[in-house]
């Protein structure tokens, strides 16, 4: 449960025992071919895995690099979140739980959790900040259509951070029958590594696809956006033992790894944006999924080790990258994923990415959810 000095189980005593149970059950399940098989089948027949590796033709020529996209946007519900929720929902069933609890910001994890719950006959309660509920009314309706209860969170900044706090509070009173399905590689042990394991299918698939597709077998760079960091963690996991350079791209206004300080929030020790008094500050990003003031503990550790680099891009760079990918390749990326692309574009232009480099980038989700945001801006 530790990643160097990060991670741990900084949970209220009331949650310590249930965290231990989740860990134990996950370890057993993960070693159980029956569980692995059932999950693999759900991912294949329900979620649409494997997702393709798309060689980006025109933009690659313009940038002078060879860019490949791992297409998590093509999964059911439209982002990599489904990989994790199917795993956790199956685990919850195995543990005899009848309900999933989830937090959500823009609603992608909430929709995914509601989906997995419906599929496996579980109930779902999704906590969502009141402000996000206003901004993402359609995702709220999607969740309700899927049968989930969406609970507005009216405290604090009324966004993801507060929704997470409220979900944890609610879990404390519901550990007996409910599983807290955290959406990223954050939270108390075992969540950061359990979620990474559920997401490593991104990296494992991509590794195999690169081996088949690239002359070099392994890409020179592996790039993913980082909010809490689950798609990056899953992607990096597939390339940890290769010479590929790992790059995590954060939002300028939510750069937990690049600019956070040691702290503890939501059950784990990691890097968080804080003010001089040690209060957690509110993140600001046009991409709701990057609008979190911290980063998963494994990313903090990879940063310290120098195994991964964490860089930031601005809202404007991300918007520009989204438009460019749409125009040149016919793919409207989620604004989160557009951050990763924005770095590739900047780095290729600035020489940070040597000409001719092969770059694997995880396209973590589709941009449909962001179209109304972009509509107002463009």
């Amino acid at each position: 449960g530790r990643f160097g000095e990060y991670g741990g189980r900084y949970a209220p005593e009331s949650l310590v025992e249930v965290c231990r149970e989740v860990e134990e059950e996950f370890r057993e399940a993960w070693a159980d071919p029956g569980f692995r098989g059932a999950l693999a089948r759900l991912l294949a027949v329900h979620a649409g895995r494997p997702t393709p590796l798309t060689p980006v033709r025109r933009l690659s020529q313009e940038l002078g690099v060879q860019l490949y996209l791992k297409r998590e946007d093509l999964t059911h519900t439209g982002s990599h979140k489904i990989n994790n929720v199917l795993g956790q929902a199956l685990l919850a069933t195995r543990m005899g739980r009848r309900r999933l609890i989830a937090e959500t910001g823009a609603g992608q994890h909430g929709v995914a959790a509601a989906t997995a719950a419906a599929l496996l006959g579980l109930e779902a309660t999704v906590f969502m900040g009141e402000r996000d509920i206003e901004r993402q009314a359609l995702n709220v309706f999607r969740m309700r259509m899927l049968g989930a209860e969406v609970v507005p969170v009216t405290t604090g900044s009324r966004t993801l951070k507060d929704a997470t706090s409220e979900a944890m509070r609610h879990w404390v009173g519901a550990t007996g029958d409910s599983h807290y399905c955290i959406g990223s590689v954050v939270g108390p042990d075992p969540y950061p590594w359990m979620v990474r394991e559920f997401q490593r299918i991104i990296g494992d698939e991509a590794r195999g696809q690169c081996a088949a597709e690239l002359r070099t077998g392994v890409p020179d760079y592996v790039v993913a956006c980082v909010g809490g960091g689950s798609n990056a963690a899953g992607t990096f996991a597939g390339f940890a033992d290769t010479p590929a350079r790992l790059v995590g791209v954060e939002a300028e206004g939510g750069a937990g790894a690049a600019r956070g300080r040691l702290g503890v929030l939501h059950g784990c020790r990691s890097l968080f944006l804080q003010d001089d008094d040690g209060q957690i500050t509110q993140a600001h990003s046009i991409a709701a999924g990057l609008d979190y003031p911290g980063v998963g503990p494994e990313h903090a550790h990879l940063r310290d080790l120098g195994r991964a680099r964490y860089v930031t891009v601005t809202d404007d760079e991300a918007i520009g990258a989204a438009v460019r990918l749409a125009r040149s390749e016919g793919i409207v990326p989620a604004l989160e994923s557009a951050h990763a692309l924005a770095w590739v574009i900047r780095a290729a232009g600035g020489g940070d990415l040597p000409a001719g480099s092969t770059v694997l980038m995880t396209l973590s989700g589709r941009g449909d959810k962001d179209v109304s945001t972009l509509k107002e801006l463009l």
Partner: protein
Amino acid sequence: MTSPTLAAGVVERHLRARRDAGRGLLMPYVTGGITPGWTDYLRAFAAAGADAIEVGLPFSDPTLDGVTIQQASETALARGASTRRILADLSGMPDLGVPLVASTYYNLVLHDGPESFCAALRRAGVGGLIVPDLPVHEADELTDAAAAGIELVLLASPTTPRPRLAEISRRSRGFVYAVSLMGTTGERAALAASAAELTERIRCVTDRPVLLGFGISTPDQAREARRHADGVVVGAAVMRRVLDGAGPDDLRAFLATLRRALDQE
């Protein structure tokens, strides 16, 4: 009774003495910096017969607190409260004759560093510290830092298994904080059934004072809690009144009713 007791600190000595004298222990809570003259509440608490006083150092993300203390934390922070200023306010106070116990989330401890944080508490006259998101298995670095003079109070919960309960009871200082129910802080209509069971289980492993907290808000609940535990922590019931505009005298009157309830039992 398996718990070996090290030399007890100020808080624990004080609480043990009062308990051993047959007194039901009362620890009211106030969020530091909640009003301009917030330290007046401490005086009122002492005057009402508090045996210890818990001072909350407000944190932006109080994940184990219910709506009342969340709101109190937000209000205090919006007023500009910070650990530094709250401790400065405490430093300026005369001795109230009851020990002060700070409570906060671990991020604020880590932010200053456990050593500095504990030293600052000591300088401000604080004797104990409660960190609800620091369970015993993560507590080593703070235990070490606190050893020099801050009693680190650990919490036990209804789901804590027995061996772990023994470890918590052994390593806790000042008292053992028994969390009465599976939930957040906040007023409840009745004392949870889990409260009695948990306190009994703790009593089997330690003779350290045991205070019941979470949800105790009326004299009746205090009276009932007293039957199992050595005393009670009263937080949300105090802070709701403060948020509603109650002054130190109002709080003194309210705490006096709890005091009487504890004394009657």
